[in-house]
């Protein structure tokens, strides 16, 4: 039986245990960022809430997209992952509010996705797959055993990313 580890709001989990599945449940505007190294079978996931950390904030806080990516990359390296065998995938960043007059207000999802796109360029990382934007919630699962990453939305079958 796989062992589901919930990656909560603003958290990061790294695992080398093949039994583990890292899960970010019910992402709306948040991003579920998954990294995997097939060679050493290590997986990491960040559940980032907001786009950018404040100046002076923890430079490795997983709560933010920018510092979360830094934290994930660092923790993966420490767990033995190599940059050239890293697989990076991301899902989330939806805009849940689609009422008249509200859509432009607080589109955190879009800002999260934009900061992610800019940050991977800065870090010179390739994004293998992404499922961003739209107006639906997502649950993201990353299997440590084989690096499989799935996305599920309400009323939709789970699909591989």
């Amino acid at each position, binding site marked *: 039986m796989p062992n589901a580890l919930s990656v909560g709001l603003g958290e990061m989990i790294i695992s080398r245990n093949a039994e583990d599945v890292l899960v970010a449940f019910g992402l*709306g505007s948040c991003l579920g960022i998954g990294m995997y190294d097939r060679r050493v079978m290590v997986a990491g996931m960040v559940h980032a809430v907001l786009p950018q950390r404040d100046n002076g904030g923890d430079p490795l806080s997983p709560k933010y997209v920018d510092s979360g990516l830094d934290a994930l990359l660092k923790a993966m390296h420490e767990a033995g992952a190599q940059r050239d065998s890293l697989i990076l995938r991301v899902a989330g960043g939806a805009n849940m509010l689609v009422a008249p007059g509200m859509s432009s207000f607080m589109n955190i999802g879009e800002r999260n996705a934009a900061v992610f796109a800019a940050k991977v360029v800065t870090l010179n990382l390739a994004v293998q797959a992404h499922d961003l934007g739209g107006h639906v919630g997502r649950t993201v699962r990353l299997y440590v055993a084989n690096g499989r990453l799935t996305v599920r939305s309400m009323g939709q079958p789970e699909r591989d990313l």
Partner: protein
Amino acid sequence: MTNETGTPLDDRLLLLLELMAGEGIHRAAEGLATMVGEEVTITRPKVVLVRLVELADTLGGAESEGVGIYLQVVGEIPGQVVMIVPYAKALELADLVLGVPEGTSQELGSLERSALAEVGNLTAAFFLNAVASMTGLHARPSPPAVMVDMLGAILDIVIATTEGIGDSLLLLDASFLRAGREVQARFCMIPDPKAIELIASRSRDSRNA
């Protein structure tokens, strides 16, 4: 606990908010009754302070399907209100306010969504009227937005806006009752920091008067 502005969200303030909520909900029930033309009661709500990271679990889990009715509050005490109901309960609530037998609504079509939006709208409007009469601070709700999705995704809106303010928010539990039927709903209240300050200072003024 203290929010960023340093205003303590202390027991006394919580009690005050609970008092306002009680009065507001009482008025909201009257409004609902007018809408459906029959007596609807809403139980006296309980106000609890919930940690943001535990919010989704408190409401049934981040992946569970639910309905969120979201309103922005504009005026002297700006903020946001989200009414949260689990999916199955939302169908029951739609039946209840539409005055049809329980089990009639099988999915949330435009009629059911409008009915739920109206519940959120009325509840918020009457609630704010009660706050206004108790504090002299006026505010009104925006048109409601209805979201049907995973609870975690709906709550992200709340999380994203409050993360910079504090680590907890006010959750208000209330039940809608009509002709022996009962549906529980939760309201997340997210006053802007300045709104909390104002309410706190008004209550101090009235206490000192």
